[in-house]
């Protein structure tokens, strides 16, 4: 029994990390632009399929294929920002409508990916082999360590960035009081750009490291954006750390539902959790009242 619980905890951690990363990206872009960027999941999808192309098919070593995939993710993110989000916002479109339009962005990239890579799920080999490692009775594969490692890295990076760099602090200020930021001469446009780059990195990495454990393919984008959004809502839609926490919570509930109740109801619990949080504490666990 103890092994089961530990196993589920392990999968909570790994799944939750992915959701947390997605949530983190969503929160960052939401705070600076007030737009809910549905293309967040597209970053994960692009990361995954790029790894398939570069690492799996072309055999390019990790050291090169990971950065290259990330570059593509960043390019797509910035393209969306410059071509869609900023022009619409400049025209005075309400941020809700702009958010809806970004759904279209993700659908278009989904189509492109499907045209290039086909409809079948794509397999990406694990980065360091498949020999399971047993810790305290729970079984991990090396890929899980990659996932946890990158998540921890980004957690650290987020903390360092927002608490330790001026740009991070400026972005916090921008989310806090946009008028004051503007009047103080903050380079608002550039800050938007950096937040979208950050979101692309975080989303891309999520897709890259999780591709070997679950198949990747053209249509992984929207569902994972949704999970990311739920994670952000649960943990605190205004708080980057809340986002990561939310991811872990969602991962936890999903794993335990799948393990102890039924894997078919896994998604159900996530949405019920969402509805509960929205009802009882709309700003999320760590969010500030808005």
């Amino acid at each position, binding site marked *: 029994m103890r092994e089961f619980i530990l196993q589920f905890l392990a999968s909570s951690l790994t799944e939750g990390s992915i959701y947390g990363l997605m949530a983190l990206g969503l929160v960052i872009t939401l705070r600076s632009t007030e737009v809910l960027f549905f293309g967040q999941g597209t970053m994960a999808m692009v990361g995954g399929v790029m790894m398939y192309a570069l690492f799996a098919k072309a055999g390019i070593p990790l050291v090169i294929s990971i950065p290259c995939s990330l570059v593509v993710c960043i390019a797509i993110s910035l393209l969306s920002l410059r071509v869609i989000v900023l022009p619409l916002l400049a025209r005075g479109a309400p941020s809700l409508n702009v958010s809806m339009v970004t759904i279209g962005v993700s659908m278009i990239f989904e189509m492109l990916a499907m045209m290039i890579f086909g409809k079948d799920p794509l397999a990406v080999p694990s980065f360091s082999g498949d020999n399971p490692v047993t810790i305290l009775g729970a079984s991990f594969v090396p890929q899980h360590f990659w996932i946890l490692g990158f998540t921890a890295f980004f957690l650290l990076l987020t903390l360092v960035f927002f608490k330790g760099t001026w740009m991070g*602090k400026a972005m916090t200020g921008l989310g*806090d*009081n946009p008028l004051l930021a*503007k*009047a*103080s*001469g903050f380079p608002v446009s550039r800050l938007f750009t950096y937040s979208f780059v950050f979101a692309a990195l975080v989303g891309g990495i999520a897709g890259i490291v999780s591709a070997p454990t679950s198949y990747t393919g053209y249509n992984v984008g929207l569902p994972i954006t949704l999970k990311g959004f739920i994670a952000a809502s649960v943990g605190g839609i205004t708080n980057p750390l809340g986002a990561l926490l939310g991811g872990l919570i969602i991962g936890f509930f999903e794993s335990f539902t799948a393990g102890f109740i039924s894997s078919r109801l896994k998604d159900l619990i996530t949405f019920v959790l969402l509805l509960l949080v929205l009802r009882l504490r709309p700003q999320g666990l760590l969010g500030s009242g808005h």
Partner: protein
Amino acid sequence: MLLSVRGLSAGYGSLMVLRDISFSMERGETLAVIGPNGAGKTTLLWSLSGLVKPKSGEVTFEGKDATGIDCMKVVRLGIGHVLEGMRVFSSLSVEDNLMLGAYGRDMSKGNIQEVFKYFPVLEQRRRQLAGSLSGGEKQMLAIARTLMSSLKLLLLDEPSAGLAPLLVKRLFDILKKLRQEYGLTILLVEQNAEIALEFADRGMVLAQGQIMLEGDASALMKDKEVKRIYLGEGTV
């Protein structure tokens, strides 16, 4: 002449708040802009600092055209705008708020020491979150932020609003010291006519988007016209 404004008209959408405003400021002088609410005082500052684009008119700063330029350029020129309402970044510390006052420009720590000289209470609270400061302290922080990089012209929007009289006096004492030390040019928008005219060299009374009166501050203080515009005795 540091600042020259000619024929400035500005507003929001179809609402024209400022109509054909012209005035100028010499280096080192303090001009107080007073008048009833809705007169366009805040809009004047907003159109100078890049938050609102003027519909027509010309603004010249240090001899160069500064009409309708964006906020980033305005700050770089050395114009600092203190918004109405004691605005600070609540979730950042006092020190961070100050340092970000020079964000993108010279961010050496030397400036902050200078600022703390004039606002010792901010030094005491440097690591506290700005959101936890009292109203008066927030106002000081808001002003102190503009001092963090070479400030030539200070735009102050109703610094006394919402502050108790004693705090207001303290604040203006500090402003007098700063003005003397740095030769600051100050464009002060205020509802409280007495405080403003006592502090300034010249005054300008704005009502319904136009300049009704202007002149020497001490003369304006005695002028019955000012009282009339404010309290509306007789007809407008």
